[in-house]
């Protein structure tokens, strides 16, 4: 048992473990334990965000400025209040003004930088000098920067051709379009692989956490006071199992409509 883990910390850890197991129970079927965990997470997140938003932004960026007589901040305050006119059918048109100002500023800021980072710089990255001599001397399959650049150029042009629908995909044009779709598939495959890794990572993290909980609960029963930790551990595990079994018996043979 981690000697630094106080009883209070252990209770919080146990609660987190309970929520983890409750969430996993959905993989078998929807049940009240899962619903409890789901509603709790949504509610706590919303409540936490409201407080963070007030202390992190409204208080420092508006309330304190107005207290310090920085009256220019009345403008964003008024614009913010005008947003609320959306709740009134007759006055809802007024909310278009703050929205227009916000979108105007955001668009003005974003469009040039969006063009720069996603279009011009990407085009520039494509315009690389391929050192054919090096490439051929190293062998075609020898992975060099030039070979990678060549692949990127061919793949990008082929993928663009695949999305050109004004000419039928036949003959040499169809061949290039096929290379294009293979390029796209390689991209999707890489994304899918990375997504699988990401999802497994989440599961691994929960297994690591549950193992820590187990170690803190029953890892070293010889420590003073650890008996109560072990008791809590088993009460939570067996209690959850019992509740799931009761729910299974209760809902056996019933459809979702019956239960509602």
């Amino acid at each position, binding site marked *: 048992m981690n000697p630094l883990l106080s009883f209070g910390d252990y209770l919080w850890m146990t609660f987190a473990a309970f929520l983890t197991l409750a969430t996993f129970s959905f*993989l*078998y079927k929807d049940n009240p334990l899962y619903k409890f965990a789901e509603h709790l997470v949504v509610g706590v*997140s919303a409540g*936490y*965000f409201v407080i*963070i*938003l007030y202390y*992190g*932004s409204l208080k*420092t*960026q508006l309330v*304190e400025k107005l207290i310090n007589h920085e009256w220019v901040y009345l403008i964003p305050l008024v614009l913010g209040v005008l947003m609320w006119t959306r709740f009134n059918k007759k006055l809802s048109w007024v909310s278009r003004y703050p929205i227009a100002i916000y979108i105007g500023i*955001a668009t003005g*800021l*974003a469009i040039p*930088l*969006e063009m*720069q*980072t996603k279009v011009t*710089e*990407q085009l*520039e*990255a494509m315009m690389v000098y391929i050192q054919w001599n090096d490439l051929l001397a190293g062998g075609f399959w020898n992975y060099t920067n030039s070979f990678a650049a060549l692949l*990127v150029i061919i793949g990008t042009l082929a993928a663009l051709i695949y999305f050109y629908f004004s000419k039928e995909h036949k003959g040499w044009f169809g061949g290039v379009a096929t290379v294009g779709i293979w390029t796209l598939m390689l*991209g999707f495959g*890489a*994304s899918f692989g*990375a*997504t*699988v*890794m*990401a999802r*497994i*990572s*989440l*599961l*691994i*993290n*929960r*297994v*690591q956490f549950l*193992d820590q909980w187990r170690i803190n609960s029953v890892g070293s029963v010889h420590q003073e006071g650890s008996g109560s930790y072990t008791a809590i551990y088993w009460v939570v595990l067996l209690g959850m199992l019992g509740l799931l079994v009761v729910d299974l018996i209760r809902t056996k043979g019933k459809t979702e409509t019956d239960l509602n």
Partner: protein
Amino acid sequence: MSNNQTNNNSNLSFLERLMLLDRRWVFLVLALVVVSTYYIPMKVPVPASTEVRSIYDAVEGLKEGDKILLAIDYDPNALAELHPMTYAILEQCFRKKVGVIITSLSQNGPGMAEQAILDIVDSTALPRTYNGVSYPGREIINGVDYCFLGYRAYFELVITGMGQNFRTFYSRDYYDVLLDSIPIMKDVQNYDDIEMVIDISGSNVVDAWIKYAAARYDVKLALGLTGVMMTDYYPYLGSGRIFGLMGGLLGAAEYESLADNPGLAMDGMKVQVWAHITIILFILIANIGYFGTRKKRGL
């Protein structure tokens, strides 16, 4: 299951039954594989990629007293992949006495940042040896070694505003201390006064860092992203807009390996190997079932 269904299923071939396999069996097998392989004492080699090494080298090249901005822009749902990156970078900076300015522009990010800071402050108090270099334990002081600025809404505007002056949006830090009275922030006005920004992100905040910090203010930027996001941001490496990229648990494990600071990411890689083998087997089995029953299904 009714008698009719039982009779119908008994008439099905093996391949047809394979196609009707309840997906909960897949979940169960995967869970068993993950849990059982977690306890196997096995080490998986994690060779570092160029894009991860460039971040490590950049941080390793910093001098005592330099400052970086670490943006912890993720919520608990991305903790599994991104926390190990934050831990490894924070520890490396604290050991090297590099000042860290921490922001959190994701709504549930402040909790993530505080947890990481507290854990690494504890860990840095102990003497350790990394890559053959011994570091004595030392006390990490809030305001001197790091400054946690906390959360502000509308990340695009905050990132743009920090390019002019950090005080535009952060007159006080997360603990309500005036920025001007914090030692580490004394000589820091904007991005010009820090060496680099490392954004550990699980959301679209990363786009704002690329546009409003890297492109607009020419900030040296590196990214730590979830596995789902990483393929979308590789083009920025090609264009030179970012100088490094860590993707998912693998990226985190590579960084831990380079920093000689094995943690949860390296610990998880052996499980990743077995879990991937299991998923590949499931994909193969599903394809055998699909192609084997095509004729019968009139395809």
